[in-house]
């Protein structure tokens, strides 16, 4: 608004009329506000062509990957993860790194072969426990982490119809599935496998270990790393399959937790009742744990051969990926 002087032509201003004062002012002007807005075109619609070149397939795929992974760090401009989800991922990541300060403490106090060394030092059992230990990691952390990450990964596209944004563009179903899969696997892998890697390397650094130590422990470490990678793959497959069959991120998350905890619980009850570990072959966690024990060279807790757990894992992954592919194939472009 601007001010302008209005000639009152010998009349009275509104103030004067209101208060009955200032009569006899022949040259009266009043300062009043006037709108600066003028009539006319305030929006010029103009079509602007674009002469750029579209990038190749990897650029399109990288866009999907980046959209989902960067969203964990910043939701600005990328897929939105709820702040509580991001906080939970951070807490789980920090919790998975807790052996590192213990190792530091152990090296600081010179606890060679003592309590700290036994509890958190590098050995077959601790390396196995870092990835596959039931409490707290596989009971609390990894399933929760997977549930919150995969929850809306595909179900959100089904719910909001955003699959049309992908498939009306030169994105194939396979690219879509691959990039979603990779995004989830990278997030899970960052927390599960990276924390395992950090744990092992920090033990070497804090204790100033040499080549001999490395030669002794590296095969065990790699076995654990492989077990961790298979855990990430299995959880990603099951989680994404559940996400692809629903329009609700809650269903996918609860479904995943139910499968992990439910199969574990049923198998435990069968073992207690019938004294057989065979039912653990239907529990993803136990199959992974069994295979991990074999890879790290520690005595198994299960009576059935490890090959059954391996076959079971292959079947679980195959079934989950088949379900994922078939459900993504059914995602519509014109109507959902």
């Amino acid at each position, binding site marked *: 608004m601007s001010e302008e002087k209005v000639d009152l032509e010998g009349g009275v201003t509104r103030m004067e009329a209101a208060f009955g004062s200032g009569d006899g002012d022949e040259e009266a002007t009043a300062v009043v506000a006037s709108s600066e807005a003028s009539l006319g075109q305030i929006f010029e619609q103009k079509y*602007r062509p674009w*002469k750029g070149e*579209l990038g190749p397939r990897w650029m399109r795929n990288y*866009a999907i990957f980046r959209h989902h992974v960067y969203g964990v760090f910043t939701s600005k401009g990328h897929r939105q993860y709820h702040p509580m989800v991001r906080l939970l991922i951070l807490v789980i990541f920090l919790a998975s790194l807790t052996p590192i300060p213990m190792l530091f403490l152990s090296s600081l106090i010179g606890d060679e072969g003592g309590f700290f060394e036994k509890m958190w030092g590098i050995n077959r059992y601790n390396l196995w426990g870092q990835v596959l230990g039931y409490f707290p990691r596989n009971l609390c952390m990894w399933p929760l982490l997977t549930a919150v990450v995969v929850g809306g990964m595909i179900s959100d596209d089904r719910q*909001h119809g955003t699959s049309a944004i992908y498939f009306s563009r*030169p994105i194939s179903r396979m690219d879509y599935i691959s990039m979603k899969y990779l995004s989830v696997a990278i997030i899970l892998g960052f927390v599960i496998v990276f924390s395992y890697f950090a744990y092992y390397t920090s033990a070497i650094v804090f204790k100033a270990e040499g080549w001999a130590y490395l030669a002794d422990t590296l095969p065990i470490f790699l076995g654990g790393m492989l077990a961790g990678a298979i855990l990430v793959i299995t959880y990603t497959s099951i989680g994404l399959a559940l996400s692809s069959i629903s329009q609700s991120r809650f269903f996918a998350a609860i479904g995943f937790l139910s499968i992990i905890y439910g199969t574990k619980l049923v198998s435990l009850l069968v073992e207690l009742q019938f004294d057989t570990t065979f039912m653990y072959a239907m529990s993803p966690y136990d199959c992974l744990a069994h295979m991990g024990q074999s890879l790290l060279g520690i005595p198994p807790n299960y009576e059935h051969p490890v090959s059954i757990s391996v076959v079971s894992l292959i079947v679980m992954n195959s079934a989950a990926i088949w379900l994922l592919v078939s459900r993504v194939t059914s995602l519509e472009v014109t109507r*959902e």
Partner: protein
Amino acid sequence: MSDEEPLSEAPVIIAKGLRKMYGPHLALDDINLEIPRGAVGILGPNGAGKSTLFKCLLGLITTTSGEGSVLGHDIRTEGEQIRSKIGYMPEYNALDPNLFAVDQVRYAGELLGMNSKNATQRAHEVLEYVGLKDQRYRKIETFSTGMLQATKLACALVHDPDILICDEPTNGLDQRAREFMLQTLNRTVREGKRSVLMSSHVMDDVQDLCDSIVMIHKGRIVIQSSIDDLVEQVDKEIELVIWGGASKMEKELSSVGLETRRLGRIIRVKLENDSTIDKALEAAVSAGVQVRQMKEYEPDLEDVFLLVMDKLGSQIKGTEDLMTAEHTGGD
């Protein structure tokens, strides 16, 4: 992407003997199409095969038989190239409610292979073009239906496609938003020299924007022609507004051998020759009714549509029969 190129007269979309079957169900039957540059309306009742045709043209589903090309690319083998050159605006919601409009459009561009910088710049341009300049940094969940439609259009236009396919672009829009949407599409065709393929149940929208139409019924093309040519083919009528006994007047007109259509007190009489007006006025005298208004009736696309549907035996009394609450915004 190619605004400097001279406009070719060659059809942008060609289909020959296209058939698509879903199991035993025939969705498209012997579709022969030649769609020229410009704006073309795709009309047809629900379930006619419009969406299936779009999916075939986008190269998303394999056709059972026949062949087709879009911008010279084979729809059976070059779906990716086709989708790179086409902007598709879906009928239903296809936006992430948690994103800002500018981020949604940028992401839509990145999914086409645009780098982040170009996609961001272009997102700002197209959002301004569709009238959302001041709403760029608002979350999509806060948008009205008109703004959602405009954002979908911006996503489709982000890479400056040669052909824009719009599925019911004025769905649920109020009059003002509808006019702006049609104006934007019109400008894209006339100023941007792009082709628009639009499906709609609102005949007025199609008539406002399109030069020609393709009408589909039960998977077959029943009409493919310019709107002007079609309207020419419809019988000329005179429209009478009757007071004091429209039913009597209707009977009287029939008795003198005139063909009529009645909508309450409005009666339309087929204009057969110069004596039709005299006959109608004499009938009014005989029936003892007042003719408050008499004018030549200009047929529109809706008349053409209803006439064709009537001839095909469809039980459609008006285009509102084709609409759901989604089309009308719940009204």
